[in-house]
């Protein structure tokens, strides 16, 4: 018989007889020395607890079944109507005239050029934002300086400013009538209506993604690990690549993924700076719009389906990454 069972038996014995003296007797060697120690009505309390019948209350977290189903139904219906159906429609429309027409639309030279430009612009923008985002997050979380809170606010600016305005800013800066326009023309550098302008606009719009993913994590991790590496004789660069970067690996990948998704899909800002030159400065979203305006619905939806596919891949990658990151956090 274990100790625990023994105690239970004692308690039951006390319970049945309902003699407080019995219980107090067991405690007395400890208490008797102390004057004025209140006698403990333990036994009687235990007794009243066993007598009380437990009536099981309804779980407060559960709503009545009809209400529960109604709420779930509304949520699911909404998701299907507004997200799943339109998405499926993109693919349905794209394939409306069969696979032949679908592939013809995709391999059309202007479409190929748009896909290439989109991938190139996204790659450059994501690369730049990866570097800038890490630097900004590092600056904000590891240093103390005047104006830091302003910087944090500025990082969020691209989220709150309309993309059209973001595009216009660059036209006003680098366009023919802009501040730097004449100088750029003199040196034969094309920014607006060319790849640099598209990249600039995309970088502006997608800047917050990487930085915003990193800042909370890096702030939480503090500088202890870096300090430890430094005391062990590691150089600044080694500390960054061997300690800081691995610590934020998953958040960084996640930020890059979101950044990439937005970079490929960006319409407004790019539309302003690109000039819509077919086969030259049209990205995928712009190309889709042009096709749609020319009533080439199948072609428009074919290219759109590619973009949607890229988004779905991003989404799946994001879910996988989130799982990884959660696992990493749980194993802390």
């Amino acid at each position, binding site marked *: 018989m274990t100790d625990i069972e023994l105690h239970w038996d004692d308690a039951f014995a006390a319970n049945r007889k309902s003699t407080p003296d019995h219980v107090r007797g067991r405690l007395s060697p400890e208490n008797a020395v102390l*004057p004025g120690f209140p006698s403990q009505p333990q036994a009687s309390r235990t007794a009243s607890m066993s007598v009380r019948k437990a009536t099981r209350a309804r779980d407060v977290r559960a709503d009545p079944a009809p209400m529960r189903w109604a709420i779930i139904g509304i949520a699911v219906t909404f998701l299907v109507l507004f997200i799943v159906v339109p998405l499926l429609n993109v693919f349905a429309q794209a394939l409306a005239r069969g696979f032949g027409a679908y592939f013809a639309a995709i391999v059309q030279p202007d479409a190929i050029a748009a896909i290439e430009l989109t991938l190139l612009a996204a790659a450059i923008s994501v690369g730049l934002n990866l570097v800038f985002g890490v630097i900004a997050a590092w600056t904000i979380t590891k240093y103390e300086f005047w104006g830091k809170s302003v910087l944090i606010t500025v990082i969020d600016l691209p989220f709150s400013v309309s993309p059209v305005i973001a595009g216009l800013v660059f036209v006003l800066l680098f366009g023919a009538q802009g501040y730097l326009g004449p100088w750029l023309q003199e040196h034969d550098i094309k920014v607006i209506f060319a790849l640099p302008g598209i990249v600039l606009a995309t970088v502006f719009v997608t800047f917050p993604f990487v930085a915003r993913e990193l800042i909370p994590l890096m702030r939480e991790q503090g500088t*202890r690990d870096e*300090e430890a590496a*430094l*005391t*062990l*004789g*590691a150089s600044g660069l080694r500390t960054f690549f061997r300690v800081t970067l691995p610590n934020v690996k998953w958040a960084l990948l996640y930020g890059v993924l979101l950044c990439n998704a937005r970079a490929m899909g960006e319409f407004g800002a790019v539309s302003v700076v690109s000039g819509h030159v077919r086969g030259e400065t049209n990205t995928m979203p712009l190309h889709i719009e042009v096709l749609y305006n020319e009533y080439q619905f199948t072609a428009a939806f074919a290219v759109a389906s590619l973009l949607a596919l890229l988004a779905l891949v991003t989404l799946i990658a994001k879910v996988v990454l989130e799982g990884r990151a959660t696992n990493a956090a749980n194993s802390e």
Partner: protein
Amino acid sequence: MRIALHDVTRRFGAFTALDRVNLEVESGELIALLGPSGSGKTTLLRIIAGLDWPDEGEVHFDGEDALSRSVGERNVGFVFQSYALFRHMTVFENVAFGLRARPRRSRPGEAEIRARVERLLELVQLGPFGKRYPAQLSGGQRQRIALARALAIEPRILLLDEPFGALDAKVRKELRRWLRQLHDEIHVTSVFVTHDQEEALELADRVVVLDRGRIRQVGTPEDVYERPASAFVHHFIGESLSVPVTIATGGVHLAGRRLALDCQGLANGEASLFVRPYEVAIVPDADGAVLDGVVKRVHGFGPARRVEIALHAGGQEHFIEVHAPRNDPVRIGQRVGLQPRAYRLFAADAG
């Protein structure tokens, strides 16, 4: 390695974390920096390490200027309170980090690194744990790995910031004893920060008591405990009970009544009477004793009871707590006399 700090001052804005601190640590010594939170002890440790710089003052290692060297060049082992183990590396790689980070010409070969890391893991009694990740270890094990990692670079000085702060009481005691043994074996000059006086007194060769950025006393554990230099040290180290008294005409007065105590050469003015709770005897004769009061509460557990007594001090009530043997007849509400066997007086303005 001998450490000498000269007039080290560190300010954070308007707050003075360290105020002209002078300290010499002898080679091979184990020193405790003891003080309440905000006393500047961690700042002092970080300045020695090179993770922080003083606004004024000098730091010398064996006579050479340490402030002109960066943290990496000082060859100092630092154990962080939160361990700061690299979570994405195995225990083995954590310990090997300092060796791999060395410049190519002084970096040992892979076999040498392996041998040294394994020796260190043996030293901290975690030999079979090399392949694990920090997350798979207990708090005490992580702390030992942090120590092994710091020792891997063969530091000239070992600095430990609240090394046992995050551990539960039992592990803390074991690890404390183990660290003392380890220090006796490897004899590296060590400084550790703690707010736990028991830890400081048990572990250190000498204890440095800090308060509000200043060193209040430096001495062996016995010194600071038996011969505290100020009211603060008496209060901070060991249990104390204090009674505000007045020194006048060569005697000690409490609420206008002259006590049968020597004023220990103190000048006239406000002062505090300090007594250790176990150096007071409770006597039944209230009028014949040095102090008297009424028993308010008795906490009874362990070998000795603690008795809360309201001192008779004019109009005011002043509560003190003294130890009383189990079999002393003490009743709540009883008027008793208190006879200090040893006591100490400090002038009130001396802090």
